[in-house]
């Protein structure tokens, strides 16, 4: 369990209909790093994420997670190492009750019953939704569903968390709770999002993707100061970094 490195090299992926979604992407993410993947709609973020847990296998190039290259033989280990949180919690929560949903992964790992119960308990406590244990997922609010989705992944004790738009459809308070929760995690985090203010809070490093290629990879603050790059990638400077519309003063420089 020493190095949870995510290494992608010259990855390309073309969909059967001929759309080149990923066209030669390389990066290396180190243990404990928190990295944002940003870009326009259809830039290839989701396709890239689907490679990180082996749902898609590289058409060319390689993906390495920790000590394993991504192949059919290592799939099981990789899925156990990489926890994936989907954009729509209704896709992720498919069991009749919250408890069973969180237990789904650990049971598949073949863990004994009492260990499973312990893990479910811990995961639910970690995201603060123990009281929802017996509820059916379709009766939860958006924020609760998101929290439970994260718990389902935590129960597998992954080393790397991959999230697709974690803050979408959340009210500001739930979004803030989520950010605080994620900030407390020690895992390596890879977050695809359009919420650049969230990136500013959580990810010291940002990768900008445009049309399947990496436009920029570096410190978040430097990337968000680059107006031209942001405009070309269909992005906008986070509100917090923009001049105040009332007093026209630029924000006081604060460390990200």
């Amino acid at each position, binding site marked *: 369990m020493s190095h949870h490195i995510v290494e992608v090299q010259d990855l390309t992926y073309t969909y059967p209909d001929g759309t080149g979604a990923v066209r030669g992407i390389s990066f290396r993410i180190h243990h404990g790093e928190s990295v944002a993947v940003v870009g326009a709609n259809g830039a290839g973020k989701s396709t890239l994420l*689907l490679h990180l847990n082996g749902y898609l296998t590289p058409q060319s190039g390689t993906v390495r997670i920790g000590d394993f290259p991504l192949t059919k033989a290592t799939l099981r280990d990789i899925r156990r190492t990489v926890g994936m949180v989907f954009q729509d919690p209704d896709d992720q929560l498919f069991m009749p009750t919250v408890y069973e949903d969180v*237990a789904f992964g650990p049971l598949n790992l073949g863990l004994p019953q009492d260990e499973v119960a312990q893990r479910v308990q811990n995961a639910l406590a970690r995201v603060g939704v123990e009281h929802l244990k017996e509820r059916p997922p379709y009766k939860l609010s958006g924020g609760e569903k998101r929290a439970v989705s994260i718990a*389902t992944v935590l129960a597998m004790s992954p080393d790397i968390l991959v999230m697709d738009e974690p803050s979408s459809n959340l009210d500001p308070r739930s979004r803030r709770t989520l950010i605080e929760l994620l900030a407390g995690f020690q895992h390596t985090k890879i977050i695809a999002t359009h919420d650049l203010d969230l990136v500013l809070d959580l990810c010291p490093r940002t990768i900008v993707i445009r049309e399947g290629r990496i436009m920029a990879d570096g410190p978040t603050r430097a990337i968000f100061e680059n107006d031209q790059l942001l405009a070309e990638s269909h992005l906008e400077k986070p509100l917090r970094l923009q001049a105040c519309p009332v007093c026209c003063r630029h924000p006081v420089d604060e460390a990200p």
Partner: protein
Amino acid sequence: MANIESALHDLGYLDTLAAKDTTIHRLDPRVKVLTAVVFALCVVSFDKYVIAAMLPFALFLSLIMGLGDIPAHFVLKKLVLVSPFALLLGMFNPFLDQQTLLYLGPMPISGGWLSFVSILLRFCLTVGAMLTLIATTGFNGVCMALEKMGVPKIFAVQLLVLYRYIFVLMAEGQRMYRARTLRSFQGRGAEMKTFAHLIGTLLLRTLDRAERIHLAMLCRGFDGTIHIRRVPRLTARDILLFTLSNVILISMRRYDCSLLLGQWLTGLVQ
């Protein structure tokens, strides 16, 4: 689409009822499923002109509903909603079978009418029993019991997932319907053709979602088997109540209680 909305609401209401805590709710799901099956078998196995002998079963069902704190108006409403099926089944009986079987005072009653009423009664009893079963056990409880009793796991899981996603599907259909209604005027845009497109889109979306759900399962180590929660062990109380209720049901089937009561009462009067 008000009826889809209310159907969705009613499904949710069944779950609310199932979350109550009464003597009936606390029984093991298997006991309730088996008893409901025995109940239904007894009712449908009566001869086709029988009415009075079935009435004790109605009493039994009302007793269970009362103990389970299930509001009668909810069950009655559901019965009325699905009754057209039974009405359709039996409505020609009075015309086809005109042989007079009994006299109610001076009025002759034909066998057709008797069997028609009998069909309706059977229908109300069996559907009512199933509704009561789900309202006191919860759909998930029923599925778990079925699995435990030897129904192949794949069916139990299918049912569970079906129930989980019926809410999502209906909500999605409802949103699409609403979107269409808001942009159709005076019947234009509300033709059958757009409806076909609507259904088609819904199917495609469903397939997409199925793929995403499968992906979510794979990400958490899904290998073809779903582990569903075990129902707890049977207690002595479960077994006792199961035996008691089934003895009552079977004796009600065996002996015509209404007739016996009638004879006893007339004997008392004389």
